[in-house]
Each structure stands twice: as structure tokens, then as C-alpha cells.
């Protein structure tokens, strides 16, 4: 196996190195990816940078590209997350009740120590709301600063993971149950795709947020796009939050969703 690996690595490596000398210089603004190919007009990325303000009124170009111009990609990226969550449930989840005795040693106060519970518990009690608030800020403020649905969703999911790690999985599950997170994950994509389908009802294309202008009652389509993007990001955040926590809960408890880490 080692020899096979060595051959594969050397072959792939030399193939990649072979092309490196042909690469545009690092940091060059006129490379085809950045500045477009000579004679082919403005490159796509130049158009993104120059026209995003006109088209969507969103300062963060990455958000505009992510949620609008390439929104179809992002929708399926969210589907990938849902698929991963579903796959993990399908693989690991133990649904037949196997009455196993609860391992008491883990919850033995003499080992765990009451003082530790107090320190960690208090810290988390203070920290988790702040983390969640920050996550919501990241989702909502994705138009103007780095951030958006994915980042906010992961942080929000991480706050539940922290709760599960600091106390135990049952405490976290009690706040965010299995039914809730599967439902929330599906609802997230429903929100996303719903914004797309609404555009179709107005006789325009799928994910054409400009068509939603009558709903948002904005002056002009760019603002409608901006609002729709926020809605879409919220949908992404729902799915990502739910699935990140779902994956953790399954991995930590071997699919039993109790007696976790």
C-alpha cells in the first residue's frame, strides 16, 4: 500500500508541478481569473465587483454572489448538508430501544466534582447566549460584513454543541429535540427554495428575486433582491444549525442520542 501511495503521490505531484510554471503570478490583477481573458471583454468577477452595488445594493459582494448570482449552487450546498444529516441518521441512528444500563461512573459526582460543574455550567450559562446572539448578528449582518447563513448557522449550531459538551447531551436535546432539528433542517431549505419558487409564480425564473418586488414593496428590484437574500440566508442558517447539531449528537452518542460525551 505504501508503494502504491508513493507512486500515486509522485505521479499526481509531478502532474501538478508540471503546470505550475504556466500559472499566472500570484497576486496578479490581470490574470484571466481576475482580469478576464484578453479579447473576451469584462470577466465575470470584474462584473461582480463593479455591478453588485447597482444590481443588488449589497456591499458584501461575496454574499451577493453566494445568495443571488450563484444561489442555485448555494441551495444545493444546503441540500448537501441536509443529505449528510440524513445519511448520518440513516447510518448511525439506533431507533430500536435497547435498554442499556446507564453508565453511572460518568455521572459520579465524586469524580466529576461539583465545583467543576459549577465553573463550567456558569461559564456556559453566560457564554451561550452571547454566542447565539453573535450568530444571529452574523446571519443578519451578512450583507455588510463577512458572514451570512453558513457562518451564522455553524456558530449557532456550535452553541448547542457547547451546551452538549459542557453539560450532557440530554440537556442539549431537551432544548433542541430530534424532531425539531430534522424539521428545522427541512424548513430551512423550504424557505430557500420557496423564495425561488415565488419568483416562478410571478412568471419569472427560479430564484429570480427581482420578481419579489411586489411582495417586499421596495422601490426597485435591487432592494427586493437584497431583502430576498436575507431571507435566503436565514433559511441556510436554519438548515446548517440543525444539521451541525444533529451530526454532533449522533456522532457523540453512537446514534442513541443519549449518554453522549
Amino acid at each position, binding site marked *: 500500500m505504501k508503494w502504491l501511495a508513493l507512486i500515486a*503521490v509522485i505521479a499526481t505531484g509531478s502532474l501538478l*508541478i508540471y503546470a505550475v510554471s504556466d500559472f499566472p503570478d*500570484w497576486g496578479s490583477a490581470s490574470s484571466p481569473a*481576475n482580469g478576464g481573458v484578453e479579447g473576451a471583454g469584462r470577466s465575470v468577477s470584474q462584473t461582480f*465587483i463593479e*455591478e453588485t*452595488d447597482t444590481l443588488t445594493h449589497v456591499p458584501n459582494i461575496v454574499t451577493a454572489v453566494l445568495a443571488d448570482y450563484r444561489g442555485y449552487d448555494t441551495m444545493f450546498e444546503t441540500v448537501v448538508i441536509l443529505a*449528510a*444529516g440524513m445519511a448520518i441518521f440513516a447510518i448511525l441512528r439506533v431507533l430500536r430501544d435497547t435498554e442499556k444500563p446507564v453508565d453511572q461512573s460518568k455521572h459520579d459526582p465524586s469524580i466529576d466534582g461539583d465545583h467543576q460543574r459549577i465553573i463550567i455550567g456558569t461559564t456556559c450559562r453566560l457564554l451561550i447566549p452571547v454566542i447565539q446572539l453573535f450568530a444571529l448578528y452574523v446571519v443578519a449582518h451578512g450583507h455588510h460584513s463577512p458572514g451570512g447563513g453558513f457562518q451564522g448557522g455553524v456558530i449557532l449550531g456550535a452553541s448547542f454543541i457547547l451546551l452538549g459538551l459542557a453539560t450532557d447531551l440530554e440537556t442539549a436535546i431537551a432544548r433542541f429535540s430530534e424532531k425539531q432539528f430534522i424539521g428545522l433542517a427541512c424548513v430551512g431549505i423550504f424557505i430557500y427554495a420557496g423564495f425561488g419558487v415565488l419568483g416562478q409564480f410571478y412568471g419569472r425564473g427560479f430564484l429570480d428575486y427581482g420578481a419579489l418586488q411586489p411582495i417586499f414593496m421596495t422601490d426597485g428590484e435591487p432592494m427586493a433582491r437584497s431583502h430576498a437574500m436575507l431571507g435566503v440566508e436565514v433559511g441556510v442558517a436554519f438548515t446548517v444549525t440543525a444539521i451541525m447539531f444533529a451530526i454532533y449528537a449522533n456522532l457523540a452518542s453512537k446514534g442513541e442520542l443519549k449518554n453522549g460525551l
Partner: protein
Amino acid sequence: MREFIENFVQPHFNYWAYVIIMMIGLWALIAKRNLIKKLIGMSIFQTAIILFYVSLGVKDGATIPIAPHHVAGDHADAHDSEHAESHDDHKAHPKPVADDYSNPLPHVLMLTAIVVGVATLGVALAVSQSLFKDFGTLEEDEILEQIKSGDYYD
């Protein structure tokens, strides 16, 4: 040697580094026997590709791709301002200049790739836990031995 480094390695150092990191990941993916190690290798392999993409979008002297509203155009270079003017007649404010902001497209693509990567890692870890339940080990060679010994004909 010095000339080689100056001409080939320095302007492309990121690309060389990406090849090296990618090869480390690929090697781990194939040669490591422990499944968790394989998965760490897989993640490293994927980050190498992300490194490649992000390196494509870098522009010297450019800032992050967030263009504030109504950006002032007084710092635009000569060739850029004529570029901007050609599209900009009915707008009150000049458009952002492309060379001032790093390329947003690779960033968007890599956001997708990172999230896909973590999804794959999660599924792979679930499969390896399920394997541990069946075989009691995470070493590839021990698993293969158990399969060969015929305990798992089906």
C-alpha cells in the same frame, strides 16, 4: 538553484505549497491504515484545493471584497476610470474599481467546498463508527484480516 527559486518558486510559492499539502493529504489517504488518519488526510487534501482556489483570487494591493455604498472613485487609476466611465453615465456615483477588491468568485466557490468537506467528513466519521461497531477496530489491515478470515462472508 537561486535563479530557479527566484523565477519559479517565489512568484508561485502558494501554488508549490498547495501541491505539497495536497500530496501530504493524498499520501495519508492511501497509505495510512487508521481510518481516522485517512479522514484527517482527506480533510487536508480538500483544504489544499481550497488554498489553490483562494490563491487564484488574490490581487496585490486589493482589499476584501466588500464595497461600501457609493464608493468614492478618486483613487482610481487612469485605465480603470475609463473602464468605469464607459458603463457609468446615468449613475450619480462611480462604480467600484475591480482591481481594488480581491476576486469574490473563488471565495464563494470555496465556501461551498468547505461546507461540502465538513458534510463529507461527518458522513465518513459516521461510517467509521458503524465500522467500529461491526469490527471493533479502526485499523484497515485488521478489518481486512477479519473479512478474509471468513467471519463476514456476507
